[in-house]
């Protein structure tokens, strides 16, 4: 089997917050009527996680589920489980109007670690980083492009964007986290 690769080959920048490309993982976009019980059941079977509330993020033993829009979820699974998860979803959702797609290669994912994660993100997005609660997924703007942002705890933030703008987003975050750029408002 070929080696797993990520769009930026695991780039990493150390500033007052460390910005690094997240470890490889499988991402599946699932669209459909989320109020349909079949979708919740299929998601639970594949990831072990319950359907998240709007803007929420849930985790199960085999993956995470992020709420993207009123009819869209993003599933995170282990990189070698993507195909199985996708097949599992499709077979369970037979007859239910839906779309399930492996979007792993379409996306770049970053991890920010350090005490200043809220501040580093606040410099580049219009989201109110003061009030953003952990495990709230906010799709927003990162400088000039779209991306999703959430905190898993007070010192760890995650960013997902299109891989086509991955280098741009990485550079924006690394610049925002560069030493000497501390503002100290949070």
């Amino acid at each position, binding site marked *: 089997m070929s080696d797993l690769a990520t769009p930026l080959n695991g780039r990493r920048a150390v500033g007052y917050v460390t910005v690094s490309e997240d470890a490889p993982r499988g991402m599946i976009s699932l669209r459909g009527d989320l109020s349909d019980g079949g979708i919740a059941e299929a998601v639970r079977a594949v990831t072990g996680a319950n359907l998240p509330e709007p*803007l929420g993020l849930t985790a199960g033993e085999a993956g995470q589920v992020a709420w993207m*829009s*009123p009819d*869209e979820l993003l599933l995170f699974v282990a990189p070698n489980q993507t195909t199985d998860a996708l097949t599992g979803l499709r077979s369970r959702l037979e007859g239910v109007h839906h779309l399930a797609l492996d979007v792993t290669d379409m996306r770049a994912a970053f991890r920010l670690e350090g005490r200043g994660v809220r501040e580093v993100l606040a410099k580049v997005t*219009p989201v109110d980083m003061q009030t953003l609660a952990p495990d709230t997924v*906010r*799709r*927003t*703007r990162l400088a000039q492009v*779209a991306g999703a942002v959430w905190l898993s705890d007070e010192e760890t933030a995650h960013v997902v964007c299109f891989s086509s703008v991955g280098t741009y987003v990485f550079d924006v975050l690394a610049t925002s986290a560069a030493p000497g750029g501390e503002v100290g408002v949070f």
Partner: protein
Amino acid sequence: MLRLHCPNCGVDCDETELSAGGEAHLTRFGPGSEDDDFESYLFMRKNPKGVHFERWRHVMGCGKWFHAARNTVSLRVYGTYPAQVTAPPEALLAEIDAVEPGWRNKEEA
């Protein structure tokens, strides 16, 4: 700077996360319609000094469309409501009546 509440995902979004969709509640005149109607559907837009109903798309977020009612002079936002309607909800109109008495007459003039 404008901040609008997206009724689809419940986020208070910034103007820079949105894409403006122009005047709301237009009636479409397509093939086979009178030339005058077609022209006004294509080109003639209201440009009021005051209450205005608009379409917006939460383009950097959930990607869905919604409607907003706001004042073009004071930039006050009266409210936002779902895209799947052909007229503003009565409750919102009543709210606008309360803060902008007489705005409907201005609109007709």
